[in-house]
């Protein structure tokens, strides 16, 4: 228990509009499925990826560089799943847009 090493991976935010609430909710939901610690680091500041409130403080615009960091049980799987979520640009089958340009 808890013997896994710390796993880290640097990623770039590529989602349109940056990490707004919907992708952040997806991150928190995924992170909560793991018992290991999951953090996201931006500019040297780490936030708990299981808490949407904390994630919202990232202010990660498109193009930002973040470090995904997991530690503990299942850390490497958590890192892979989280990185895959970022790489998929958070396309989990739900409608991408939340804009509303109704003419």
């Amino acid at each position, binding site marked *: 228990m808890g013997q896994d090493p710390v796993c880290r991976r640097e990623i770039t935010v590529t989602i349109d509009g940056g990490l707004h609430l919907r992708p952040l909710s997806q991150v928190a939901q995924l992170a909560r499925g793991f018992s290991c610690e999951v953090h996201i680091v931006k500019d040297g500041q780490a936030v708990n990826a299981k808490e949407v409130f904390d994630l919202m403080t990232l202010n*990660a615009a498109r193009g930002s560089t973040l470090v995904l960091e997991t530690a503990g049980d299942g850390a490497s799987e958590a890192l892979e799943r989280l990185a895959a979520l970022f790489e998929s640009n958070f396309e989990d089958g739900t409608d991408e847009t939340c804009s509303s340009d109704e003419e």
Partner: protein
Amino acid sequence: MKLTDFVVPEAILPELRVESKESAIRAMVQSLRSAGSIPAQDEDSIVAAILKREELGSTGIGKGVAVPHTKHPSVDRLVATVALARGGVDFASLDGEPVYILFLLVSPPERPGDHLRGLENISRHLRNENFCNFLRQAKTRDEVVDLLQEADDNQLD
């Protein structure tokens, strides 16, 4: 960016009494319209856009807080209002709890950074328990404005 940069004081609703999420959103958008922050002819379309966004996943982010929002071309800068619902509103929140503090944001589509900075600002201050508790106790628009100002000035730590 500070809370007082984008929260419209005249649109704050310190005593929101509503039965549903939709009524809460409608009342807050109406208040922004009455304050002159969004055009009257776009009120319905903004409400519809915010409700559509809620269908993608609730913006009830836990701890009794919701941040309903949308991008909309009718605004040229980020505008927001705050509502306090003493009785709580069922928002289908992530933690299943009712919400008591609502921040509603409307931002220009071409300025996603402003929206992110607004969310960052709100969440950073709401992580401060003093701010949350004082806000939930505020009874008038002036008290809410004072609290936003104190939070901006980091006087609540």
